[in-house]
């Protein structure tokens, strides 16, 4: 099975985000970049499918030179090949990224395209659907279980309060949700093997896109809590506030 996994490099989840002075971008100086955690599920699933059915796993990522370290992480887990689409930065408009990824995916004749359900930095959650449009393929998102028999895919999706089971056929796009599998740790041998794999660099002119980042802002400071009372008498008032003001129940 010829599998492509589209991955994105994102800031570590524990990063304290600092903005540039003009608030137009995130200051990258002290950021530790990692492979997007949802993409790790996609890589793991691809590797398990390869181990079951043979085949090849190709990692594809778009971004500046630093993204090669995320690509190496995926290779160290056991992927076979990688393509780096060079870009000065991640485009503000996911449609631009999708167009570039789709152009590369078309060349590869893949049976299955895997990716994380979203990137944890910009949270657009659009890539699987955009790629489906670009490539005219079915896309199944938020997948927590995947079975492939022949060219028939049965995928279980997480939806609000239930699981939905859908079927489609290969080739298709699958967007991984947490719970799909448990990603393996890169082994010492895997890391050294990944070092020897040549990452194919692709120069591509990217479209301008229709979105522009106007500004970033820090989330509002949390205000101090309020103590409603210290006995059972306060419960009705607490419930009222949680319902009407905080709107959490």
């Amino acid at each position, binding site marked *: 099975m010829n599998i492509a996994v589209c991955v994105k490099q994102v800031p*570590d989840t*524990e990063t304290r985000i600092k903005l540039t002075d003009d608030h137009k971008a995130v200051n990258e100086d002290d950021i530790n970049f990692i492979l997007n955690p949802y993409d790790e599920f996609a890589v793991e699933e691809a590797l398990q499918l390869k181990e079951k059915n043979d085949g090849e796993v190709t990692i594809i990522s778009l971004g500046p030179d630093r993204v090669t*370290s995320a690509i*190496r*992480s995926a290779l*160290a887990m056991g992927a076979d090949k990688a393509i780096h689409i060079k870009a000065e930065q991640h485009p503000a408009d996911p449609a631009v990224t999708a167009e570039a990824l789709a152009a590369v995916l078309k060349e590869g004749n893949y049976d299955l395209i895997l990716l994380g359900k979203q990137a944890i930095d910009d949270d657009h959650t659009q890539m699987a659907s955009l790629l489906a449009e670009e490539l005219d393929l079915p896309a199944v998102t938020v997948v927590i279980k995947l079975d492939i028999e022949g060219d028939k895919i049965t995928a279980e999706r997480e939806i609000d309060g239930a699981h939905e089971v859908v079927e489609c056929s290969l080739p298709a796009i699958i967007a991984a949700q947490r719970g799909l599998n448990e990603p*393996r*740790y*890169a*082994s*010492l*041998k895997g*890391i*050294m093997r*990944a*070092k020897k794999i040549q990452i194919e660099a692709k120069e591509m002119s990217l479209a301008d896109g229709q979105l522009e980042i106007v500004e970033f802002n820090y989330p509002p400071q949390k205000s101090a809590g309020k103590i409603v009372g210290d006995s059972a008498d306060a419960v009705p008032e607490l419930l009222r506030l949680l319902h009407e003001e905080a709107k959490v129940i």
Partner: protein
Amino acid sequence: MFFPVDYYHIYESLSDEERMIQRSIRQFVDEKFLPIIADFHARGVFPTELIPLLGEMGLLGVTIPEEYGGAGLSHTVYGLAMQELERGDSGLRSFASVQGSLVMYPIYTYGSEEQKRRWLPGLASGKLIGCFGLTEPDHGSDPGGMETKALKTDGGYILNGSKMWITNGMLADVAVVWAKLDGIVRGFLVEKERQGFTARAVKGKYSLRASDTAELSFMDCFVPEENILPQAQGLRAPLSCLNEARYGIAWGAVGAAMACYNEALEYSKTRTQFGRAVASFQITQQKLVEMLNEITKAQLLCRQLGLLKDNGKAQYYHVSLAKRNNVHMALDIARSARSILAANGITDEYQTIRHMLNLESVLTYEGTHEIHTLIVGEHITGFNAFK
């Protein structure tokens, strides 16, 4: 994820792959080991369920060539691995040290081709576990005085004697046992099912609780001819194994120290007394700076020792100096960190006291602090002070 202190950017001089290995093991320790260690420590049990994962990651036999199942990597990588594992617990590092340096290394170095093929792949994957029997109840610093004897018999040897403080002793499928044959120290591979071979757990430990420690007994235990390590002749052979393990300990102890420093630093910044952070008091700052000072020196020592070892220039006395310095400083740091944590530092809510108790063992095992002092002393003066 744990962000280790690296005040002098020492780890930046590592290759990209070495740093990736460091991060991968760190993530494993954070996610799989730290959440469970307090419980295993309390129960006095080694978390055996992690052994297959240690094998898959290549942490058993890091320097053993790939054709025998090892990772075939440098001593620097081995050192980094031990440091990351001991950042979790000295017991975890001990498991990997013993398996790699004290079992796989002697089989690889002194074993026959048949022995290597039979044992190394299984030991590398963690499907088989090994232990190393040199120390005896009455011979610790003085292994040359060992009383365990091997007697040549038809088709093999008969072993008699006992071995003490044997890490992995209860779990082991095979023991590398050192015994005197006609007065010369030889190595024997003893499978656990051999008749006359028994292992008994050491009870009541306050230190290395999450590690398997046993006493091994051999009563007329027969091992066949093919179980003797053909190339190991004399005490130099087991001492060479210890040299490998001590090298890993020199790195490992720094991991434990880094964990304690990190915990004490974070605690001191958030804990307030007299209306201010305890980190704002001069005595606390002095303690923290002393820790950082010693950790930074020890990190540099490891880095250079690793380079020496990878270039084939590390001598046993280089390893002794690093072991004595790094373990001693780590124990001092653990105690100092515990004093910053004060009463909170005596419970298993924090990891410092576990490291502190473990390091008491590390200070005296694999060559006591005193013996390492005298090894270096002998090297620089020419006078042997302990024979």
